[in-house]
Every structure is written in C-alpha cells, then in structure tokens.
C-alpha cells in the first residue's frame, strides 16, 4: 500500500517527469522488484509445472518436450546469433504494419463513431472484416502483390485495421457525453473537438483497443510469414515456428512458441503497460479501493 502511494507520486503526471522526487535508494529497488518479481515468479511456476509434467513422463517426449530441450534450441539460436535476425525481421515488420494500420484505422474509427450513416453502413463491414482469418487473405495477397513485403503488410493491415478501428469506436462510445458538450461550449469546432476532447477522452478505452490491435497485427504477421521464405523476405519467427512444425520437431515448435511469447510479453511490459499506467494514473483511475 505505501508502495503504491509512492509510485502514484512518481508517475502522477507527465508534467512531473522532470521534478526531482526524493525517493531513497532502498525504495527504488523495492519498487522495481515489485514490478519485475511477479511476472518472473509466474514464469518460474509455469516452467516448474512443465518440468514436473515432463519428469512424470505423463506423455511421451514427442508430445511434451523437456524444458531443457527447448532451452537448448533457444540457446543455439542465441549463440549462433540467428535470434537477432528472427526478432528483427518479425518485430520491425510488425511495428511498421501496426503504424500503417494506426494511420488508416484512426480516421476510419472516428468516422464510424461520429457519423451515423458510416456507423450503420461501414461499421458492420469492418466487424465482418475483423472476423476474417488472416490466412484467408494469404493466397489473394500473393496473387495480387507477389512474394514480397507488400503481401505481408496487406495481410497485417487487414488484420489490424478493423481491430484498431473497432477499439477506437468502443473507446469513443464510452466518452461521457458531457465532455464533448463542454468542448462545444468552449468553442471546439469539428476538428478541435476531435483533437482536444474526443481523442484524449477516449484514450483509456482506445488503449485497450490498441493492445488488441497489436495482437491482431502480430498474429496476422505470424500467419503471413508462413507463406514462404525467400532471401528477399528474410526469416522471421513465424517461419522458424513453421519449420519446427514441418519437421514435426516439438522442441523447435515450443522454442518458436516461447520466442513469440517473449516478444508478446516484452511489448506488453515495455510499451503498453507503462503507457496504460501513465494514462490511468493521470486520470486517477487506479483507485486504491480496487
């Protein structure tokens, strides 16, 4: 509890970032520990269960690989340096795809949320699009764009744009109507109302949508990377996973899953979690009562 209060004051607002706050060394260590220990603990528990299951020889080795076997797969990638390429290829693609999706999805979401005809006409289509699996677009993407990054981005966009747009719509729908009214009374025009009132007000809900959108774009990318490897495309995590699958090498499959998982957790911890904390704290949405 006192811990939480200290964090609150440290991250209370963006404006406060440059204010020196007198926190003793010990509390900083404890603060970081309180952040880092729980996920590590959870992972340790997971791995322990896995190890125990494996050691119990419940299932044959080809059904459940030993944690050590998976680790040696990953370690091999690390020592050979291949892991850097795997991460780089996939992550940079996902980030670019996500960025493009954002640029398309935000105006789309604003239009759907604010214009009745668009909401009724395009809204359901966007949701329908969201329910199309990425793999469905792979053959068409290859046909239309060829075996290159454009095909991959196309698949990623079709996965991420509807999701981000829907997330934004849901965030906008929850904005208390008094806020845009106040905005209007304060002289906000169409654009000012969006820029200064609607978008910031929808931010907490939109962040949730962004997280889902990121998950969609990352998953779509993994699906798209299964299409083919070519020197032009480079080898990403999706391809690595697929290689494991086509070799029916379960420890490689698990290594692929672990690596993809690590990226997912990393993005969550490094990007979305701090963003969320900042946004929620600044608005007083992290009540100690909860």
């Amino acid at each position, binding site marked *: 509890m006192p811990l939480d209060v200290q964090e609150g004051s440290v991250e*209370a*607002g963006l*404006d*406060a970032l440059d204010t020196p706050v007198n926190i003793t060394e010990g509390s900083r260590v404890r603060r970081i520990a309180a952040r880092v220990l729980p996920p590590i603990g959870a992972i340790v528990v997971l791995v322990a269960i896995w190890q125990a299951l494996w050691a119990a020889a419940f299932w044959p080795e080809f059904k459940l690989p030993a944690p050590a076997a998976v680790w040696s797969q990953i370690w091999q990638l690390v020592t050979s340096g291949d892991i850097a390429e795997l991460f780089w290829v996939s992550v940079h693609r996902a980030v670019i795809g996500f960025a493009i999706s954002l640029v398309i999805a935000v105006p789309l979401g604003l239009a759907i949320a604010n214009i009745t005809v668009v909401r009724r006409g395009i809204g359901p289509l966007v949701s329908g699009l969201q329910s199309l699996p990425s793999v469905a677009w792979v053959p068409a993407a290859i046909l239309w764009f060829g075996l290159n990054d454009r095909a991959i981005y196309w698949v990623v966009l079709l996965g991420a744009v509807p999701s981000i747009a829907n997330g934004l719509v849901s965030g906008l729908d929850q904005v208390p109507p*008094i*806020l845009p*009214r*106040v*905005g*209007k*009374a*304060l*002289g*906000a*025009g169409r654009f*000012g109302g969006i820029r*200064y*009132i609607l978008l*910031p*007000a929808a*931010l907490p809900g939109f962040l949730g949508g962004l997280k889902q959108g990121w998950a969609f774009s990352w998953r779509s990318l993994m699906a798209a990377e299964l299409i083919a490897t070519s020197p032009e495309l480079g080898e990403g995590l999706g391809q690595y996973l697929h290689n494991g699958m086509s070799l029916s090498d379960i420890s490689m499959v698990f290594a692929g899953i672990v690596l993809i998982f690590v990226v997912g957790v990393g993005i969550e911890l490094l990007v979305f979690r701090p963003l969320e904390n900042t*946004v929620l704290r*600044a*608005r*007083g949405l992290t009540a100690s009562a909860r």
Partner: protein
Amino acid sequence: MTATIETLPDVLSPVRFHQVGKTFGTGRKSVVALDGVDLEVEPGEFVCLLGASGCGKTTLLNLVAGLDQPTAGRIELNSSRPAVVFQEPALMPWLTAAGNVELPLRMAGVPKSQRRAKAAELLELVRLAGLGDKRPHELSGGMRQRVALARALASTADSTDGKPALLLMDEPFSALDAITRDVLQGELLRIWRATGTAILFVTHDVREAVRLGQRVVLLSSRPGRVVQEWDVEDAPGAVDEINTALRKVISSHAA
C-alpha cells in the same frame, strides 16, 4: 401572470426566446421540460433564473448555448458564442487544473506563454493560485467548481467578433462555503461591470439572486414556464416577496 418585456427593435439582444418549448422523448414517457417560454436578455444585463429543482433551468441554458435544440418555438441568438459554467464541473480528467483553464484558449489558438499567464491569473481569481498542476481527481468538490468557473471565464476572453458577449452560469457557487462564495460573487460583479457582458445566472438561492441580478425570473415546474419577473436592482426587500412566490409555485405543483 407571465410578463414579457417589450424591447426596442433597434437594440440587438444577445438572446431572445419566442414561445420556446422543449420536450424530452415522445409518447407516454415524454417529459415537457419547457413550454411557451418568452424571455429576453438585454445587452449587458444580469438576469437571475430561479426555480424549483427539476423545473428546466439547465435545459433553458443548454438551449441558449446551442447544446440542445428546442422542440417548439424559436431562439434568436445575437451574441458571440456564449461562455458556459455547467452545473457539474465536468473537467477534462486528463488535464491539470491549469490545463483545463487553458483549454478554450488553446482551441482559440492563443500562444502558449499568453495562455499560461491568463490561466494563472484566472486561477488566482478563483483563489486557487498554486494549485494549477493538480489533476481534477486531486481537487475537492468546491475546487473543481472553481476551476470550471475559471475555464468559462477564459472562454469569454477569445470572442472578438464585436457581438454582445453572453455568460451562462448554472449554479456556479453551489459547492462553495459562504466566504469564498462572497468573494467570488464580488469578483463576478466586478467582471460584469468591467466587460459589459450579459449574464444569465441560474441559482436556487433567492438571496444570491437578489444580490447579483438586475432582474430575477421565476420558472414554474412541469412544464417550465416564466411565472413572474422582478426588477431587483434597487429593491433588496424583494427577497421575501420572491420567496413567497417560489413557495407558491412549488406547492401548487405538489398539489
């Protein structure tokens, strides 16, 4: 007993109601909030609006501010965009107190340093100097109301189109202690005299209405109609008379 004031056609009133009605919903569940309201605010006039809880005062202000459309009648608005103090503070939760006060200036394109200065000045005015970097959730109820007041005053500052200015205030002092309220009432009168802004002021405090207003308008409830008006500028004794009228209006409704 409805009394409408005839004005000379050559003076443009900031706002004029012509038999305005407002009904929420349709069918059996509809609520008639306002009905046949004729009301005019003259340039630079300070009008106080009195009425029972739920009689339609907020609805009337919303109509003037253009945030709702009347379902009957016509509203003639000759002022520049009215500044509004809402009944709830409705601060933007992602902005600090100063950020909230700066918001209308930002939307009007006022440069940053000017905005800063203006916001600090207004916060000082509402006795919140030094609390500009607090978030709304860190403020007390009365402090929030004062920030909202400062914000509304900031939004009057940017109208430059020459039309008469208009300030709409919905119970702006309801959450304040007697002393702070006293001070702010004084400030409001000072600002009003200095700028010549017309003010339409909603309150449930008859004493306040008589102290501040030149004219007091009493609304009845369900439907909201203008029941009576008093010129109170030089009639401090009107308080009891108005209280009696208010009591009559409310009890006639309850009956």
